[in-house]
């Protein structure tokens, strides 16, 4: 395999670029679907693509990821099928969750996606249990949990970090610090110098990463995954990133942040900086980039067609899956 100047093989670079572009096209389309009234409660991950892509590049299907209300990017980075994801957003029977979970609860156990979660901070202890399971079963699987800066203020994070610390569990805590929890700025809600600094209290290696750089996320994610696989315990990553859109569909972010700040982050966009990198380092030529972009768009168009043409669940599905047996 061809290795590039920074020691990442070409296939991995291509995968990371392509995956970020698919996420962005997918999110643009899901916003269109939401604007058309076909789903509600959708939280766009546009702007944050690099964070899960850089980390998940190191994961196998049998490693686990747990996400949040804003998790479409986690799911795609973990290799979920976008046809099934789009069908899930529209509540169709062919969706990842048979239409029963929707945008905030996408899961695909075979792909190691143990679910997006609508309750802020709720996924973190579960991820810790996934790490415990790997350790007790004696595998080298890794558990990665993504959560926001807002979730960093839930007690669950602190309890989970302590557990992962005392038991040296293979858990990677990835805080996507996009600077806001709904309209609340991180500098208001977080006491202390940083979110990453909280890990020090649990003797956990921690790092602040540029979440707009997929290459940096790849490097830092790689170290964390290697540490977890080797049985050396948890890592805390604070990835500094930005959500370009409002918290959810109807939210106007300029009510609480400035155009200047938005411009600053968009100028450092994870996809356009990656394009520059790929071109400048002769990894890809312009026409190859364009071909990847066109293919990503075609994939999303196909996912939308698949979702639209799929049937809604049968009425009987209302009461299945509550239990395995109940009598």
């Amino acid at each position, binding site marked *: 395999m061809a290795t590039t100047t920074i020691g990442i093989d070409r296939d991995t670079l291509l995968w990371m670029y392509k995956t970020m572009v698919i996420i962005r096209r997918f999110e643009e389309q899901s916003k269109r679907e939401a604007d058309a009234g076909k789903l509600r409660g959708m939280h766009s991950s546009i702007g944050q693509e690099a964070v899960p892509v850089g980390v998940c590049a190191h994961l196998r299907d049998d490693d686990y990821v747990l996400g949040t209300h804003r998790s479409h990017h986690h799911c795609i980075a973990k290799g979920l099928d976008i046809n099934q994801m789009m069908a899930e957003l529209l509540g169709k029977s062919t969706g990842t969750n048979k239409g029963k979970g929707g945008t905030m609860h996408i899961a695909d156990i075979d792909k190691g996606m143990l679910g997006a979660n609508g309750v*802020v901070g709720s996924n973190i202890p579960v991820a810790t249990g996934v790490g415990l399971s790997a350790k007790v079963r004696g595998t080298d699987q890794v558990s990665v949990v993504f959560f926001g800066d807002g979730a960093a203020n839930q007690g669950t994070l602190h309890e989970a970090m302590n557990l992962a610390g005392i038991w040296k569990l293979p858990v990677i805590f990835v805080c996507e610090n996009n600077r806001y929890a709904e309209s609340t700025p991180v500098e208001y809600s977080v006491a202390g110098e940083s979110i990453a600094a909280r890990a020090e209290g649990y003797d956990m290696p921690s790092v602040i990463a540029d979440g707009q750089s997929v290459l940096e996320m790849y490097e830092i994610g790689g170290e964390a995954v290697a540490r977890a696989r080797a049985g050396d315990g948890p890592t805390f990553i604070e990835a500094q990133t930005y959500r370009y859109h409002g918290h959810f569909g109807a939210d106007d972010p300029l009510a609480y942040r400035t155009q200047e700040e938005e411009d600053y982050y968009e100028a450092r966009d994870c996809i356009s900086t990656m394009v520059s990198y790929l071109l400048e380092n002769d990894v890809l030529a312009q026409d190859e980039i364009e071909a990847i972009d066109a293919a990503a768009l075609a994939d999303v168009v196909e996912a939308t067609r698949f979702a639209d043409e799929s049937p809604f669940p049968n009425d009987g599905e209302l009461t299945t899956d*509550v239990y395995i047996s109940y009598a």
Partner: protein
Amino acid sequence: MVTETATRNLSYIQAINEALRQEMSRDPAVIVMGEDVAGGAGREDQGIIDSWGGPMRLTKGLITEFGADRVRDTPISEAGFIGAGVGAAATGLRPVVELMYVSFFGVCADQITNNAAKMRYMFGGKITLPLTIMTGMGAGLNTAAQHSETLYSIFTHFPGLKGVVPSDPYTAKGLMISAIRDDDPVILFNNRQLMGISANVHVPEEAYEFPIGKARILREGDDVTLVGIGYTTYIADQAAGLLADDGISAEVIDLLSTSPMDEETILESVQRTRKVVIVDEDYPRCSVASDISALVAEQAFDYLDAPPVRVNPPHTSVPYSRPLEALYMPTPDKVIDAVNEVMG
């Protein structure tokens, strides 16, 4: 009750907002806390203030009128700030704390059920806890299992807590004010669909209380009693309108308080109509509906022409997919079917 002739229409959201504003003006001990109750916290020096005014805009304008000391955005730390509400209530404040969606009560259940509910009792009656928790609830909006529950029943289970469920802007304002003035912990449940429905009811401008523990008869009738709770009052009343077209006279009781519950109004009505249908959006097991059903069976058995019938969703979590969610919800049609069942 206040009666006025002029009609003053407010939305449900405006009614709650007005109640909060009037109580904050009246009593400096009233403070408001919750996630994004103001929004854009800490950026006043950049000209940013009140960017949200609450996720449902219930608290819009409060920070500009009363300041950031009394209107506090919180981090996402429900156990922390609801627990802080308990402590503040025990020591001289009258906090109104917002729990954005009732499903998140799991995060702070200990503070509500072990502290708010029990402290007065355990301390031999030596404290008062004038805490109000307001929370959003209800399905029908395509937001799946963790953002759609209607959990007033579970709180009704706990001695020490009061629960109120407004059904329109008029009761919303009166119950919000009563909840704030009450010296016990009260949970006010705001149904999300009701917050979007424009109801043509008069809302007096001056502050007024709607008594906690009192139901009201929304529509008088002789043939059957329908009991609704918040949003399902709206559903029951729609059903009653349709039944009237078919010559069936349904009485609609708007429960409004789940704890204490106005047993007298229910029993008095059922003794007249001899039939009851209870319409409840909460899960069916151990629900307010099953509680009312037991009440009627135990205390009005001799009057009944038919067993009480409950219209609840099935014993399942709330589905995301819209056609499934539509099947999940109590609807006027389901109420009419139930009425036909008790009418025999």
